[in-house]
């Protein structure tokens, strides 16, 4: 399944009395609602470009779809000193 949302947590001044926390939930499904129909509409143009450069347009779409659907449960955490960022795709 495509990831429906991205969770972003940011902490800064960690371990200090001035610690701040931020949590965002980004609704990726809204992005897909706009992006995916647009890709479908642009398919003829993309197909023409792919024919010109020698790439299979259908395989390109299939591979791109596989990559998008594989993004679920990916997360990245970066901790630097008093700064912490965690991004997760769900």
């Amino acid at each position, binding site marked *: 399944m495509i990831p429906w949302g991205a969770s972003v947590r940011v902490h800064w001044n960690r371990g200090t009395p001035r610690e701040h926390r931020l949590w965002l939930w980004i609704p990726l499904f809204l992005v897909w609602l706009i992006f995916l129909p647009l890709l479908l509409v642009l398919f003829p143009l993309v197909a023409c470009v792919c024919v010109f450069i020698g790439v299979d347009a259908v395989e390109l779409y299939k*591979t791109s779809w*596989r*990559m998008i659907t594989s993004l679920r449960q990916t997360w990245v*955490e*970066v*901790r*630097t000193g008093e700064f912490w960022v965690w991004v997760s795709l769900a």
Partner: protein
Amino acid sequence: MGDDRRQILDLLANGKITADEAERLILALERSNGNESSGAAGTVSGSSGAKSRPKYLRVLVEGDEQMTGMKGGTTVNVRVPMQLLRAGVRLAGLIPAQAHDQLDQAFSRHGVPVTLSQIRPENLEELIDHLGDLTVDVDGKDGNPMKVRVFCE
């Protein structure tokens, strides 16, 4: 297997089970026979058959204050689904054939003797499957305080 299937058909013929039940029993029989044969193959091939396939690739990088200049050091922790790697390797198959030579030359110039036209998706799939046994631990020594760990889980 033949006796079991015969028994199911006899029960169906005698009206003791319905056709739907007979079908489900036969499917369950085929599934269990399929599991037995694959289990036997796993036993013959060794312990790798019993291992479950890894789901994620993890990369851990740790650098201390001396290296990063940041108080408390730096840690980067990434988890990527193996499915993403499998989908990503298929991108190599999209490279136009006429570009293969140029890319091969570019790789050679940088000391990587790769021939893209000889790379097949099934070979890369096999490589990814074997990533399950991969563990890379790099401990910095001699003034290089960075630790890198790559493994699958």
